[in-house]
């Protein structure tokens, strides 16, 4: 029982970390960025290359890959989203342009890294098991939960307390009003993409470390769950994404424990479905009706 709670928290922290970056862009632009999973994947490969080929320490590679993820996010915004700004159908066309860029990213990864599953070299992270009562967790798992919480807290602080964060929130609220107030919208959005993709990149590296599996399609597995999490949490709500991430992790684990694993994803999507019916804007979604 205690073990399953730990399993759920661990799984949930991965979902949450993937989702907070995702929901940031969603909150600012009202656009689902289907390339988020590709940034997740590319950052994991970049960290892998730095550790395995350049023989750097993980503690150098992780921040470097996170930074690279953020930069890829800026490129992504220029390529797929900025040209669409102001177009009436930008939410659907943005979905498609981001999908196109994701395809290009995946092709590039396939070309450079090949289709096989790669992993970080043995011993990149100390292999230690920690006993918590009757349950066990690895040091890596605990670190991942810790890093996730720190990154999510940092993002929340950044958005709430800094000038840049306030600008991003102003753009999310109303681009027109933000412009009148003198906010450089292009810059604020680029920054949102940088933060979003950096977090996505961090999630990718941690995922690759935790599960020893990095491949060009690794992001596909988390994409749909991440989507479920940000919708469950409520449009653009960072705390919502965190809560929903952990909630989904726990729901999945307890479905496995009590109903059987074949029902796991059915239950996840059924929960998503019924939460939306009951609370059309998600758990912590803003009440103000904005048509997406």
């Amino acid at each position, binding site marked *: 029982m205690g073990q399953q709670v730990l399993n759920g928290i661990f799984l949930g922290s991965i979902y949450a970390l993937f989702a907070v970056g995702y929901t940031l862009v969603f909150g600012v632009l009202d656009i689902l960025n289907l390339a988020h999973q590709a940034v997740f994947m590319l950052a994991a490969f970049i960290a892998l290359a730095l550790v395995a080929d350049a023989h750097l320490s993980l503690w150098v590679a992780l921040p470097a890959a996170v930074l690279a993820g953020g930069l890829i996010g800026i490129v992504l915004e220029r390529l797929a989203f900025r040209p*669409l700004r102001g177009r009436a159908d930008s939410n659907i066309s943005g*979905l498609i342009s981001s999908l*196109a860029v*994701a395809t290009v990213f995946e*092709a*590039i990864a396939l070309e450079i890294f090949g289709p096989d599953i790669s992993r970080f070299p043995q011993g990149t992270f100390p292999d230690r098991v920690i006993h918590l009562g009757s349950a066990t967790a690895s040091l890596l798992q605990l670190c991942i939960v810790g890093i996730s919480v720190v990154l999510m807290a940092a993002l929340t602080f950044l958005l709430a307390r800094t000038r840049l964060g306030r600008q991003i929130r102003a753009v999310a609220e109303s681009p027109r009003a933000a412009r009148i107030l003198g906010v450089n919208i292009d810059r604020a959005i680029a920054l949102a993409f940088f933060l979003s993709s950096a977090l996505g990149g961090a999630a990718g590296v941690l995922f690759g470390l935790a599960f020893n599996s990095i491949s060009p399609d690794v992001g596909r597995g988390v994409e749909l769950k991440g989507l479920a999490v940000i919708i469950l949490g409520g449009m653009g709500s960072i705390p919502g994404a965190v809560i929903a991430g952990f909630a989904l992790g726990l729901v999945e684990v307890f479905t496995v424990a009590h109903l059987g694993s*074949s029902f796991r994803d059915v239950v996840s999507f*059924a929960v*998503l479905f019924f939460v*939306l019916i009951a609370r059309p804007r998600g758990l912590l979604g803003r009440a103000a009706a904005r048509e997406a």
Partner: protein
Amino acid sequence: MGDLLLAYQSLFAFVGINALLALSVYATLCCGQLSLANAGFMAIGAYTGALITLRAPAVPFIAVLAAAAVAPAVIAVPLGLPVLRLRGVFLAIATVGFGEVVRLFFVNWDYTNGAMGLVAIPQRTSLWTIALALAVTLYVLGRLRGSRFGYALEAIHEDETAARTMGIYTTGHKLAMLVLGAAIAGLAGGLEAHFTFMVAPNGYGFGRVVEMLVQAVVGGTVAFYGPVVGAAFLTVLPEVLREVGARMGLAPGPFRLLLNGAILLAVILYLPNGLVSLPAVLRRRVRRPA
């Protein structure tokens, strides 16, 4: 020449089937609703049709196809009533959830062999069956344009709240289009199942419905035939790229994926109204320098 036609006849069939699927997404898109339940509807149609053919081979094909279209349409009603209250991406994700539940149902259903699916389905679909189904669907959607019902849909597309205050029964109209879309997707599923000899749950995931949406939007949703253009373009493109790659002496590989993505991006950025607007855009370009 005959052989060449034979070599690509399946490609024509897939153009037709994908066109139907893109139209099924267009059906809800044209009243402003982004519903992504269609891979699930397609799965229901495909399995319904396949099961009838395998268990009762005497049933005529037209009846099998009718069942493939009706089954998802019937399910669309109780799905649509609660779901269509949702807007935008929330509707999209709720319907994605429905589609995943349908796929997982077939993954877990032993009667249809789970992941292995149903195999050895007799090939009953021919090119002209697909062409006929496409023609009928286009006729129905074309007739909607310009009709009273069609104007109501356009009004809902423009502004749902205003449409409701004008006295348009928005829920009914939206539901009707969801059901129509479900029927078209189910029909396409039934046709495909009897063309590809097999059905399996993996063919009906999230990726499939995204593909349908992409084809509809790339073709252009300003005209009812836009999705057909988009489906034709995006279905033929990988095969054209295969040919290009072979001519350039490239081994098959990721470059096809790469070009596919890049061309998709170019179309969506430079042709906001889809491929159907290409002639108008070209005309404008030509006129300007003159």
